[in-house]
């Protein structure tokens, strides 16, 4: 066992190992929703899921992961306390992670067998005298230098800030892009930014010959008595007084000449500006300002003209008003408490693979940046492919709704080849897509339940999702009343409306599609153009509020509607692409996936797909994250982002 803890298996450790083998706590990558989408029930296999790698002892890898996600997973693995194990399903190739301790096919039976293996390994080998180290390659750090006051200033070499002249502060940074959920190193960096954010570090102590503690004696010799200078500053009524400079951070540093502070390296500012607000003599104060208003060499610090002055707020040395003048201010007016926090790609309550970087202002989100680590740029397989390969490839691109994309590929191929399908097949296809919509929306409800801490919603929705996936039409019909009861009870949950209403409100606009658009009152549904849907009496459902609550209710209503549609059709069929032959041509198709309308246009050349272009709803929705989250409290922001039902897999560049 590679992730064993150092030690020997004596009696005590045997007991601990036996306990650990019965208390498996899994951290799932890319996420539990992917496991459910492929029909695997992790809880049923006896695995408890952890919200943080710190509390997990098994890393569960579901399916093949893109390289970016593997890097992030290796960070997660590095964070897990020993003894730790890796369990992979449906893949063996997980470099840079170490070789898995147990592996199995991507099925429930495969998971159960692998878990039994893991239990055995834990019981036998949780403690080993010799253990290997594991260093995640992404965690190799490099040193960079940044200004405590201007975080945008980042340099590779030490020096002074070009904006304010402060000595740059050393910090470690991850070797490559920020990745990983709750990466300790990143978090350390993040927190270090918080702790040291506006730090005036006196790294360059040789400069002024002072230690950080301030060798007062020497200081007096160099700069004169700070105390005395305070007295001089208290009398600025004589405008003829020689101009003196002081440090905004260290008022005891006073010099007759402009220059930099021997303690922290900041540019010295003229006395009156740095905080020489002359007691209550406003006239002198104003004069001092006139006198220095031309002095702008400090790049903004200090230089406050009379207009910016807030009456009654005195600018003293170390004044936050002076020092934070150019820093971005948030809605509450408080500056200097911004921290950058990574959320994802394995954050509980967000879809796996979604990398969010939030700049938090206290507990509120100031800015966001979202990125998909699993999105694919090309809908085409590497080389010109046969239609079957193309269909499989496109379905594999979106593990959260493979059927809809499979259908999309089939439709486009048939269009290109000029074929048409029999009505009964078209209806069976409709049913299979609707079934996936039900499963997908239930899966979203499970994620919502996990995010909002309502475990019964999570459990029930997940159980229904697993039952609906792959169920025959008759089974779906028997499930229908149970699901309807669940949905009705769900919508009556106390505190649910209070939690969701008003969150992430979106006005109707063209970037929205799918349930998000329909919840904002847009009757945008490509199914309404489809004669097969019209035949069985489909009508577009909409809500008006456009907030997270409306989106939840919209999805619940769509589940019920889709269940009705499946009952009306009465059969579901597996989607098989027709034989295309050696046809050539171009075709376009659109399918209303569970997340909105996806469009595909492709070119066939002698039976091979040579070009394809896909537009997915999620790509546009990813850009909505800023609208939904910025200015909100962290919890509300994440609820809003969750309510968009983003599938990072469908993001195309």
């Amino acid at each position, binding site marked *: 066992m590679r992730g064993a803890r150092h030690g020997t298996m004596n009696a005590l450790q045997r007991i601990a190992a036996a306990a650990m083998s019965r208390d498996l706590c899994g951290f799932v990558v890319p996420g539990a929703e992917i496991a459910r989408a492929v029909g695997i029930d992790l809880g049923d296999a006896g695995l408890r899921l952890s919200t943080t790698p710190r509390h997990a002892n098994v890393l569960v890898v579901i399916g093949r992961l893109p390289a970016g996600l593997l890097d992030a997973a290796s960070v997660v693995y590095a964070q897990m306390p020993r003894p730790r194990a890796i369990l992979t399903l449906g893949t063996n190739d997980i470099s840079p992670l170490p070789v898995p301790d147990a592996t199995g096919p991507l099925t429930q039976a495969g998971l159960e067998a692998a878990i039994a293996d893991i239990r055995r390994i834990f019981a036998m080998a949780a403690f080993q005298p010799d253990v290997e180290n594991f260093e995640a390659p992404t965690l190799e750090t490099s040193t960079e230098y940044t200004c*405590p006051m201007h975080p945008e200033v980042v340099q590779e070499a030490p020096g002074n800030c070009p904006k304010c002249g402060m000595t740059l*502060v050393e910090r470690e940074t991850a070797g490559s892009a920020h990745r990983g959920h709750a990466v300790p190193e990143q978090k350390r960096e993040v*927190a*270090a930014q*918080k*702790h*040291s*954010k*506006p*730090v*005036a*570090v*006196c790294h360059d102590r040789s400069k002024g010959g002072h230690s*950080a*503690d*301030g060798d*007062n004696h020497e200081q007096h010799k160099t700069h004169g008595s*700070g*105390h005395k200078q*305070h007295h001089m500053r208290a009398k600025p009524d004589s405008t003829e007084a020689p101009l003196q400079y002081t440090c905004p*951070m*260290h*008022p*005891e540093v006073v010099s007759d000449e402009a220059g930099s502070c021997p*303690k*922290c390296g900041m540019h010295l500012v003229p006395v009156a500006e740095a905080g020489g607000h002359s007691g209550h003599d406003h006239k002198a104060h104003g004069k001092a300002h006139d006198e220095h208003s031309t002095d702008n060499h400090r790049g903004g610090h200090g230089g406050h003209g009379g207009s910016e002055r*807030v009456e*009654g*707020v005195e600018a003293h*040395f*170390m004044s*936050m*008003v002076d*020092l934070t003048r150019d820093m971005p*201010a948030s809605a*509450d*007016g*408080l500056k*200097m*408490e911004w921290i950058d926090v990574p959320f994802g790609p394995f954050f509980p309550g967000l879809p796996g693979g979604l990398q969010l970087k939030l700049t938090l202002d*206290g507990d509120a989100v100031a800015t966001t940046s979202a990125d998909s680590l699993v999105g694919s740029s090309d809908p085409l397989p590497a080389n010109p492919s046969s239609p079957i390969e193309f269909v499989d490839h496109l379905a594999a691109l979106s593990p959260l709704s493979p059927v809809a994309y499979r259908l999309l590929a089939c439709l486009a191929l048939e269009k290109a080849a000029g074929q048409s399908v029999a009505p009964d097949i078209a209806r069976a296809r409709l049913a299979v897509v609707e079934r996936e919509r039900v499963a997908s929306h239930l899966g979203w409800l499970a994620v919502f339940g996990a995010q909002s801490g309502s475990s019964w919603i999570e459990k029930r929705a997940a159980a229904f999702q697993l039952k609906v996936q792959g169920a025959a039409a008759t089974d779906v019909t028997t499930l229908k009343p149970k699901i309807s009861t669940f949905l009705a009870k769900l919508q009556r949950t106390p505190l649910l409306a209070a939690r969701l209403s008003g969150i992430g409100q979106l006005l109707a606009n063209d970037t929205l599609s799918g349930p998000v658009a329909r919840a904002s009152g847009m009757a945008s549904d490509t199914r309404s153009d489809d004669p097969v849907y019209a035949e069985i009496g489909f009508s577009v459902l909409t809500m008006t509020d456009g907030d997270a609550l409306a989106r939840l209710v919209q999805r619940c209503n769509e589940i019920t509607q889709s269940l009705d549609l499946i009952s009306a059709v009465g059969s579901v069929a597996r989607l098989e692409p027709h034989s295309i032959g050696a046809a050539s041509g171009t075709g376009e198709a659109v399918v209303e996936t569970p997340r909105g309308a996806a469009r595909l246009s492709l070119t066939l050349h002698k039976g091979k797909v040579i070009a394809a272009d896909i537009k997915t709803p999620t790509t546009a929705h990813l850009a909505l994250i800023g609208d939904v989250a910025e200015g909100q409290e962290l919890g509300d922001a994440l609820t809003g982002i969750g309510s968009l039902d983003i599938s990072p897999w469908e993001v195309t560049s």
Partner: protein
Amino acid sequence: MTPQMIFLMFFGGAAVWFGIVVFRTLSMVRSALALLFSQTAVGVMFLLMQAEFLGVLQIMMMATEMSVMAIFMVMFMMDPGGMGAMDMTHQKRLSLWAGGIGFVAALAVIWLADWGPANLQIPDATEQTAELGRELLGRSMFIFESAALMILTAMVAATMVAIHPSEGRKR
């Protein structure tokens, strides 16, 4: 020397030590919590001197007050974690003089004041609490009520001052 006196000295020493730590640490949170533990030690001294209600009240109130102070220091100070080793002291000479004079004055009061004979008939805790209640709601009521009103005014005023800059920005 009774055990009570030994404990009293121990917690007195702890109060002073934590008071020193407040200024010795660079971390704002540590500083605030050191002040808390200094005050908690004073509360324990109350308990040892059999002023149960006052001791418990001191221990309770300080926990929350110092925690609130901690977050304000984190919000407003430049280097809340103390990781930048930034020197935030100023006006050292003035402070030293002020502190020294205050210390001497306190010592003078302690030694020169006539504290009267020690009260050996300490009422039990229930009686103390009842007497404190009568005092607070009787003779001292006006003082405490006006103090409460002043604190309320100060809170409202502080809030007004705090929101003023953002009002200015809106214009």
